[in-house]
């Protein structure tokens, strides 16, 4: 609790401790990742972790900061992926397809939010679940546009500024840039006065209303921001796989991302990233040994909710605080 400047050390040393040092090291490790990873298979997994982390951040903005659990986000994600794929198939360039993907997703998210925000809490969850399934059904059945179960393929990845993203390493760096951008956006968003207002609507909607905040508008804008992050993740996903099928819109996909947020810790920025890493690694490792990933996913879901309900990041912070708690009979300061 008293982590103030330690006397006798220079300001620079104090600045370069704790969180900042960890952040710097993490950034360095991410920037140099292709160098210390044993092969492109692992670099690809790192790319997956990063774009799923962006997706998880999108859910976390609503779930952790807004108290709104969306179980249909894979549907929104799917809107982006299909828009990009269809636009590319229709002969548009990559820039146009990406912009179109973001635009259509935001428009879709606006409709999604207006419908779902008529309810909060469990009602919101049920409506988003139904909306997500409807979007899945659309992708599955609207064969003339989506090619149904066979999905759509993308001919190529884009080459921004003439740099081809075809290789694993190049794509990883592109993903890293988008990830850092999204993380920065999310950090600015949740620490802004607007983020505080959003947390206010989560905890005390009636009081926020009394204070003159338009609770619906705050939530609606948060949904749009979440839609933007979802679109960014979707664009990375569809270019990473160069393929999109209704599988990506299934309820399992939505639930996987919610699991990332819950397991890592909702309402934190680090939690969804840790959760994304956990789920993606587990999925890749588990699928090498067992066929039953969904069973494991369900079991992890149940176990985490029952045993570590606050998520791994806040959970380990709690354990860390507990381990470092002052010891003494009267609860006073530990002897130096």
């Amino acid at each position: 609790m008293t982590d103030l400047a330690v006397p006798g050390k220079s300001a620079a040393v104090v600045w370069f401790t704790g969180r900042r040092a960890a952040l710097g090291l993490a950034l360095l490790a991410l920037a140099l990742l292709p160098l210390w990873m044993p092969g492109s298979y692992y670099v690809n997994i790192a790319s997956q972790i990063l774009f799923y982390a962006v997706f998880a951040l999108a859910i976390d903005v609503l779930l952790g900061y807004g108290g709104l659990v969306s179980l249909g986000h894979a549907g929104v994600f799917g809107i982006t992926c299909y828009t990009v794929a269809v636009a590319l198939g229709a002969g548009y360039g990559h820039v146009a397809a990406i912009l179109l993907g973001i635009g259509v997703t935001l428009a879709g998210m606006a409709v999604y939010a207006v419908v779902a925000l008529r309810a909060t809490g469990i009602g919101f969850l049920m409506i988003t679940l139904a909306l997500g399934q409807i979007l899945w059904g659309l992708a599955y059945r609207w064969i003339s546009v989506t090619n149904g179960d066979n999905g759509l393929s993308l001919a190529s990845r884009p080459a921004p500024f003439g740099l081809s993203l075809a290789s694993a390493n190049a794509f990883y760096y592109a993903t890293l840039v988008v990830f850092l951008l999204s993380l920065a956006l999310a950090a600015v968003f949740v620490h802004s006065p607007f983020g505080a207002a959003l947390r206010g609507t989560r905890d005390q909607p009636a009081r926020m209303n009394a204070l003159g905040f338009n609770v619906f508008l705050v939530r609606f804008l948060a949904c749009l921001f979440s839609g933007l992050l979802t679109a960014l993740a979707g664009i990375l996903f569809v270019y990473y796989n160069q393929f999109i099928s209704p599988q990506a819109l299934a309820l399992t996909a939505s639930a996987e991302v919610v699991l990332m947020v819950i397991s890592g810790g909702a309402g934190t920025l680090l939690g969804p990233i840790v959760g994304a890493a956990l789920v993606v690694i587990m999925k890749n490792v588990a699928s090498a040994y067992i066929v039953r990933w969904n069973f494991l996913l369900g079991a992890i879901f149940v176990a985490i909710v029952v045993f570590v309900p606050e998520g791994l990041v806040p959970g380990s912070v709690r354990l860390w605080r507990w381990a470092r708690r002052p010891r003494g009979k009267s609860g006073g300061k530990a002897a130096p």
Partner: protein
Amino acid sequence: MNQNLILAINSITLGGLLFLLSAGFSLIFGLMRIPNLTHGSLFMLGAYLGVTFAVWYGLNFWVAAVLAALVVAAFGGVIERFLLRRLAGNQLAQVLVTLGIAFMIADFCLMVWTGDPITVETPRQFVGVVRAGDLVFPIYRLVIILIACLFAAALWLLLDRTRLGAMIRASVDDPQMARVVGIRVSRLFTLVFCLGAALAGFAGVIGAPILSVYPGLDFDMLPLALVVVILGGTGSLLGSFLGSFVISFLYNYGQAHFPELAYFVLFLPMVIMMLVRPQGLFGRVAP
């Protein structure tokens, strides 16, 4: 035969099944405020169990249906007692646990009954059709409609005309006050959960000759039940009843006339309802 008439009969049949499914869902939601996301899975589990009892063990279809309903009810009771009860008051956790269990059931069924769809024969005594003038009705579909109506009447009597029903309604309205006057609310929770599960499992079995049983049946049925409850209002039997038929008509006609947009057709009534009357047709505004 007139295509519209076939569609209408199919819609009413599906509506009957949907009612059995969504009535339990709506009751559980009304009583415990848990959207039980395992409900579609209980439907599928019931269907698989019924098929197993009827085809593999050669039991009478109806005996198999009741047996499957009982097993599913017991399973529901276990979920309620040992998982949901531990998380009382934490709705989000309860939802996520039911979702996790739904995935586990789906994978379990895939493991035991493989991925191939199983078709079920119509029970022998109900094969055939009834003719009325130019109109032809398949008997089994009429039987399902009849069963759904019987269950609707029985549930209404149970909830509206018995002491148990009064206790359930009291616990829905004000669980704390109900406890004060000596109603064992938590026991009622388990009972209602088992009842809802049994209805879902039973619907799964009697629906099997029409829908067949296949992996993914669970998440085909769950959104339909959700939309029914959103439309009809939670905790309302009448809402589930009417909502089931509206949704099944829309779904069947949508599939026949706009096969590519069948799911999207479901979206419209939901949007209109959310915009006009967010609590649903017969739902009450949450306190």
